């Protein structure tokens, strides 16, 4: 489990988009602070995801980077140059819009070539790039179709090709997969990742879907109420969430009461002491800890050693895994998820019977709040 590495000098130099203490306030009677002193450096060639529930400010940040909204305060730099005051058409940044925003009166090819056409590129170059883009997104056959005659997945591909065609330095994606059905969404997730590595363009992806974020991103920024709570790799974010909100938003969680003392926590529910690395600013004393359901195992019997006594409330079979809902000795509710491949679910005690829970070493994370 790697620690979140401090940003090195080399990485600092590679920053493509530097959001420097940006705030955005929408004026009016019910003035909202959509972004509150947000700073983040997004590196070159990175697949960076802004993740958060609706209203957390992620789309506002994206619109500020695109140039549709000016920041109320703060600066925005692209490769070291301040672009906060540039109009959208002055920025080498393109957007894939949530509803694609394809031009309905133009063919697929004209849509894709629009950016290059506006940049005044010669016709031949435009046509060549359009053909290359059509191939990249596997839409050669539909070149001269009207965009209104396309399915959702096809529109999605055209929108991608249109935004990629001018070869922007940064590509912004505003929840582009939310309108697709599950199967198509999974396909497009892999497709997007492929396109990003093939084109070498920095992708900034906005989503509220934690699974999407974990699957595709190099780094994720989790946002809430106009602030960034945590930035890190998917592994960091999932395994070492800094706050309860982050832990709760990403993946399933058990939050337990515990006592921290000299680098070890003791759960209220029992079991031994777990060695932990407490986040900075958390003092010894009562704390809240996180245990992911898949890091706990359940078996029948009476507790021995570091195992926790519990009573089974409910057993839910879901194909690949079985989720066991338990009540711990402390009265706290606990979820454990066991893979069915190991046959773990087969020999489980049934509802109401006593059981014991084993928490894997290193699976206990102390939370900041």
């Amino acid at each position, binding site marked *: 489990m790697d620690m979140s590495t401090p940003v090195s000098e080399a990485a600092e130099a590679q920053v493509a988009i530097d959001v420097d203490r940006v705030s955005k306030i929408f004026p009016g009677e019910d003035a909202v602070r959509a972004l509150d002193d947000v700073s983040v450096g997004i590196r070159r060639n990175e697949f960076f995801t802004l993740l958060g529930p609706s209203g957390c400010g992620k789309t506002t940040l994206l619109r500020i980077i695109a140039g*549709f909204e000016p920041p109320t305060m703060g600066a925005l730099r692209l490769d070291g140059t301040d672009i906060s005051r540039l109009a959208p058409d002055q920025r080498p940044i393109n957007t894939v819009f949530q509803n694609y925003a394809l031009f309905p009166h133009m063919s697929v090819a004209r849509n894709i070539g629009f950016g290059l056409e506006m940049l005044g590129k010669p016709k031949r170059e435009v046509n060549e790039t359009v053909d290359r883009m059509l191939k990249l997104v596997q839409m050669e056959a539909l070149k001269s179709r009207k965009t209104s005659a396309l399915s959702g997945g096809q529109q999605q591909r055209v929108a991608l090709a249109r935004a990629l065609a*001018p070869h922007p330095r940064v590509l912004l994606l505003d929840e582009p997969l939310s309108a697709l059905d599950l199967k198509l969404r999974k396909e497009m997730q892999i497709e997007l990742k492929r396109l990003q590595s093939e084109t070498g363009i920095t992708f900034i992806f906005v989503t509220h879907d934690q699974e999407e974020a974990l699957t595709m991103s190099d780094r994720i920024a989790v946002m809430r109420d106009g602030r960034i709570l945590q930035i890190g790799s998917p592994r960091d974010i999932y395994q070492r969430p800094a706050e309860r909100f982050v832990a709760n938003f990403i993946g399933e969680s058990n939050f337990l009461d515990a006592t921290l003392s000299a680098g070890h926590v003791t759960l209220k529910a029992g079991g031994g002491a777990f060695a932990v690395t407490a986040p900075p600013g958390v003092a010894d004393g009562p704390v809240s800890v996180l245990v992911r359901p898949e890091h706990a195992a359940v078996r029948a019997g009476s507790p021995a050693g570091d195992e926790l006594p519990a009573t089974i409330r409910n057993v839910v079979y879901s194909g690949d895994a079985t989720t066991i809902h338990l009540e711990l000795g402390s009265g706290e509710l606990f979820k454990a998820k066991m893979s069915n491949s190991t046959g773990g679910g087969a020999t489980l005690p049934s509802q109401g019977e006593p059981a014991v829970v084993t928490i894997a070493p290193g699976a206990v994370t102390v939370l900041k709040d």
Partner: protein
Amino acid sequence: MSDATASPTAPGELEAEALRQDHRTRWLMSLPAIAIILCAAAGPLMVMVVYSFLAPGDYGNVKWEFSTEGWVSVLLQRDIFDGTLAWADAHLSIFWRSLSLSLITTVVTLLIGVPTAWFIATRPDGKREFWLFLITVPFWTNLLVRTIAIQELIRAEGVINLILLKIGLIQEPIQMMFTNFAIGFGMSYVYLPLMVLPVYAAVEKLDFRLVEAAHDLYASRWKAFRLIILPLIKPGVIAGSILVFIPSLGAYVTPRVLGGGKNLMFGNLIELQFGQGRNWPLGAALSLTLMVAVMIALIFYVRATSRETHNG
């Protein structure tokens, strides 16, 4: 499916019977509409066609004898002494004035109406109704009254001249009444709402994210307007242009009040034939000429504008 067609109940016949019944009900239900169209539109039109081929009566009305003189006089005039035909210059200049002033009116209302419609459509929800209401207020007043109000603005001692004199921009009042300018000014004012309303309806439906997408793809404001906004609000612009151009061609009250007796337009010329001119067949022929001209203009306009869309 193949056994179904081979079955003894012959569903093909059944379907045909259902179709016949369907046609019968549709005919019955559209009868009232057809009756109204026949009485109110086709009937009078036929009367006009018949009148245009008759001879004028001595004190108006028509004499029931066949004559093509009405149609000949639309473009030509017969010398009263030797009966030779020459171009009817007076008519031609009236046609030209009608056409050019109607085109100018359409362009002026477009230039003012599109930004106005845009302004209204981009107001927040709940405030648009107020602006739309303001646009429709002039309809509550009689056309003649509004036209006379315009006269009050532009006459020699009118508001505009007084202001210009006061601030010393001019030394003498400008003659605006009884000119083509006065007619164009008046018609632009009167027909402006007919442009604003359909354009508003089109702009209101416009997806503004498309405009953002165009800017995002390096389109300047003008390019975004020309390549994205204009093509998408085109149905509204076409409807507005038609709604302004057609009544402008046949306008009667406004040219009469603001243009005076010399600056006739098509509508005034027609009226003249049924009034002082006492030449009903010519009036009928002129009316039909106007109608055909409008139809041809419309066909060309719609063709030209839809072709441009397909090029996109």
